[in-house]
């Protein structure tokens, strides 16, 4: 049941318990208990809303920053990752394979804000060797959802 619940609420966390129970063919209590258990053990870490900020009057700048670091003895990348993810303006931090070590995503109000974070905070960290900052120009698809256009039903209205 866990996998099925997660499959649905990963896409639509707003679905109410009763409906979730109906479409899964399970009892409401079982579904509620399962979700509570997953919240308690950290399987479910939070509920977010996917927003197309371009539709609002709020200005946002998103950036991907590739970070190369020197791993520390006994701690690997964990402690430097922690130093970085503790900044509230940082959205995500991933340890990567390949040409760089950490991928940091960041959201700021202006270009200036992002660049000041990189120059003043990120690159001054002792273990950071170098950074490469990419600004996101347009989001076509995010979290499996296509932002560019709406689904249009082009089927014939009635077919046998």
């Amino acid at each position, binding site marked *: 049941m866990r996998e*099925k619940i997660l*499959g*649905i609420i990963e896409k639509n966390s707003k679905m109410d318990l009763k*409906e979730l129970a*109906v*479409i*899964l*063919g399970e009892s409401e209590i079982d579904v509620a208990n399962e979700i509570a258990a997953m919240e308690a053990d950290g399987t479910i870490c939070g509920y977010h809303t996917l927003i197309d900020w371009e539709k609002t009057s709020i200005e946002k700048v998103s950036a991907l920053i590739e970070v190369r670091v020197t791993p520390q003895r006994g701690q690997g990348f964990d402690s430097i990752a922690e130093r970085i993810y503790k900044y509230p303006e940082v959205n995500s931090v991933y340890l990567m394979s390949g040409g760089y070590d950490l991928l940091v995503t960041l959201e700021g109000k202006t270009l200036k804000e992002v660049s000041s974070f990189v120059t003043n905070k990120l690159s001054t960290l002792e273990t950071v060797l170098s950074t490469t900052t990419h600004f996101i120009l347009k989001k076509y698809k995010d979290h499996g959802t296509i932002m560019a256009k709406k689904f249009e*039903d082009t*089927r*014939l*209205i*009635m*077919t*046998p």
Partner: protein
Amino acid sequence: MRNPLSDKITEVKPSGIRKFFDIVSEMKDAISLGVGEPDFDTPWHIRDEGIYALEKGRTFYTSNAGLKELREEISKYIAERQKVVYDPLKEIMVTVGGSEAIDMALRCMLNPGDEVIIPEPCYVSYVPCTKMADGVPVIINLKNENRFRLTAEELLEAITDKTKVLILAFPNNPTGAIMEKEDLEKIAKVVIEKDLYVISDEIYSELTFTGKHVSIASLPGMRERTIMINGFSKAYAMTGWRLGYACGPELIIKQMIKLHQFAIMCAPTTSQYAAVEALRNGEDDVNMMREAYNQRRRYLLHAFEEMGLPCFEPGGAFYVFPCIKEFGMTSEEFALRFLQEEKVAVVPGTAFGDCGEGFLRISYAYSLEDLKVAIERLARFVENLRRQQEK
């Protein structure tokens, strides 16, 4: 001037859905639950393969029976799913949708006057195709109390000296009924005893929600008596690609390929390349779609229960077939009023045979969000009707 038309074609009645289609098309803001095809787009990797085939210039005829690699994939797929082995070179042909296969099979198997047993409610093409093949349709009216399954008794009653073919279409459009192994065994016994053949339209086989689909061809003694028809439309959401196939004994398939060669040449080449990809790498997509349909099915059954609308639990396809007899209206009257008052289009059960009277076909090839809106309106409509009845 002479009448340009044949008597045969003028006697064939137009599809019962046509009339309703015209009315619905006039209404600009109507929402529809009347569509008989998936709401999903064809999975991207399958479309990509079609595009690639075009780019590569694979734009010529294929062999009449279809691409060899496609027939081999079909053979593997059927062997794995239905435990029936067909020789890809002699016992499988690729057709323009399942519809063509039905037409070809009937035309290759019937002599004038041969009777074809057609359990109704059913898909709209069986009766006209039988007539065009000079056969005589013999209708069995399936019953709600049997969950719209065919019983051996019903079949026996319909058989005469002239009966040659039985058309079985499960999971069923429009009822969503399925036939389980035990049900099919009883039918197979009669078919063998009475020396009949079966055209088994299994186009919805992948959309079986309660257990696994069983083909009648997999039962002892039935392989040589069955033309198994399937296709890509429903399982892989590929209706517009027009691709299906027929599997059966060489004796019959050979003649069907001959007719297909003269009438069609071959199924669309682009679609055939895409279909190879569908069979090789499409299983996850099928599973995802089946699960989505099943969730909607549960949602609808629950909604009907809440509004007190009787509906047997369908085990397959993407239709539910609720009963509206309590309102004292014909299916058509109900559907028309529902359309006018609530602007929701459903198909009257009678579009699929006279015994569909008192039922509606509601398709759940729609997103849950769309279904919710439509069901809210149905609940309101039903409540209003009941209030009017009380007065």
